[in-house]
């Protein structure tokens, strides 16, 4: 395993890009060769060894020690292997990653997994704005893979997301799934509305909805109706392994409610809730009263 540790050097930098510093690439090189790889620091190309101590220990993969909060594009271009970051990461986590596994012990900055194409990314802390969402000037966000966030998510999670699965364990701020094109977003905690504005297709699965959720859902969504979805067991089998046992236990035997939208743009996206039978998610009763 290759270990990169930040050097205590004189001087400072604003942003550093670790794009293409991938496990598979580094494992094929010697420590000296790795130190001579060039990285972008404040838009200057400098040898990696100027800012990082490179060492090798038993095992496989790549490990980044320390706080990497100003390091962007970590895991960029990964095509296999494992990357473990023992701290925070900057923006554009897993940029253009196709396969492999990234684990981040800390928080992630903006645009995390925005250009993810495949593989498995897990952030144990919070994520910034536009996670799994389209980059500025791009029409599509995350395009594949699985992105798991244990902390909370800032605004615009999965905006214009194209494909893949996002699992948000913590609270999700407003603007989630705006103009979402396809894919699946699973939200295990509280979600701020509006949700799914301009959503075209895709699935939002809410595991802890509040009874008032339907009142605050985007107006373009249909009234929720209880339904049986044949595909839900498939989805559940696909995500169950990522969810904590408490969440799985909490949703067991709950009923399924579904709302379709955003009809304002002709969308056929769906918002699915797992809830107790006594919760009323339709606005039919309120209309009658």
């Amino acid at each position: 395993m290759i270990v990169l540790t930040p050097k205590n050097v004189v001087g400072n930098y604003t942003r550093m890009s670790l794009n293409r510093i991938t496990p598979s690439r580094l494992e094929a090189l010697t420590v000296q060769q790795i130190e001579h790889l060039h990285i972008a620091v404040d838009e200057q190309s400098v040898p990696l060894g100027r800012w990082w101590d490179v060492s090798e220990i038993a095992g496989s993969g790549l490990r980044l020690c320390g706080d990497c909060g100003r390091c962007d594009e970590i895991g960029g271009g990964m095509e296999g292997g494992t990357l473990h970051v023992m701290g925070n990461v900057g923006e554009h986590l897993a940029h253009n990653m196709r396969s492999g596994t990234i684990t981040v012990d800390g928080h992630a900055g903006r645009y995390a997994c925005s250009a993810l194409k495949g593989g498995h990314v897990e952030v144990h802390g919070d994520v910034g704005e536009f996670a799994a969402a389209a980059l500025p000037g791009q029409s599509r966000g995350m395009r594949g893979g699985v992105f798991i966030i244990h902390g909370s998510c800032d605004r615009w999670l999965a905006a214009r997301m194209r494909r893949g699965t996002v699992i948000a364990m913590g609270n999700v701020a407003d603007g989630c799934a705006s103009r979402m094109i396809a894919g699946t977003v699973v939200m295990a905690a509280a979600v701020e509305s509006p949700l799914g504005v301009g959503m075209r297709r895709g699935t939002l699965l809410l595991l802890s909805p509040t009874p008032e959720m339907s009142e605050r859902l985007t107006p373009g969504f249909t009234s929720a109706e209880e339904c049986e979805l044949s595909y839900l067991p498939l989805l559940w089998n696909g995500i169950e392994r990522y969810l904590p046992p408490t969440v799985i236990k909490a949703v067991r035997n709950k009923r399924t409610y579904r709302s379709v939208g955003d009809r304002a743009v002709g969308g056929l996206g769906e918002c699915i809730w797992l809830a107790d039978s006594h919760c009323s998610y339709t606005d039919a009763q309120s209309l009658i009263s």
Partner: protein
Amino acid sequence: MRINGVTIEDTFAEAFPMTATRLIITAADRFWALRAAESMTGFATSVIDCGCEAGIEKEISPQETPDNRPGISVLIFSVSGTQLEKQVVRRVGQCVLTCPSTSVFAGMVGEKKVALGSQLRYFGDGFQLSKVIDGRRYWRVPVMDGEFVCEESTARCSAVGGGNFLVLSETLNGALKACESAMGAMKQIPNVIMPFPGGVARSGSKVGSKYKALRASTNDAFCPTLRPVTNSLLPAGVGAALEVVIDGLTEKDVAKAMRVGINAACEVGSRHGLVAITGGNYGGKLGPFHFHLRELLQ
């Protein structure tokens, strides 16, 4: 060679190459999964006029199916990938899509694909949704009981069709008993189906006919009523012959099914007048796979 007093003739059974796929049909319960599977594999006894040969391979427990519901595994065999795809789409569209609560999934993986949901999704008239889960694409087609879930495609592989053995008995009743015993044992073998009704054909055929339009015609050499007027291959005392036909994913699977089937037939048949077991030997004209009966049973 004799087993339980039954003669195993020194001959071989011929089989021919086919292409095959496996589908997993699930439903709300076993009853509906079985109805869909039976319907889908109906009228699929012979490629000669059915377009494919199909049958139920086995039942699958909910723990083994993709959506944790009771399932049935079916195998479909045809002469080419194009023909197989045509039959699969038609049969799933007319017999599984229509059956309440069912879903259908690929039962094998491989490079060569057979369209499934990619064709059937159009029934959704624009309301269909696709979903990729664990790298597999599923189509969700809205139907009147909810939604029909269908995997994008299944895979196909080279296979062996027309493996066989003939049961020659003193009486029809004895031949039936032997075949029923063989079927009971062969149904436990994976990767094979016996496509004919009950797994058995009474109208065993020979290649060609005096009529130009027909590719196959009655196997007169094994018809008891034609014994006086044709070059009969029936041993003396034989009053009925039945043919057990086997399609399998590999030559080894067919050989295993034949071995198990012949042994089971001999075990029961010897008490009911079973005289001999022989093979459908067409002089090498039918296909390249030759199953020598005595070698199989050694």
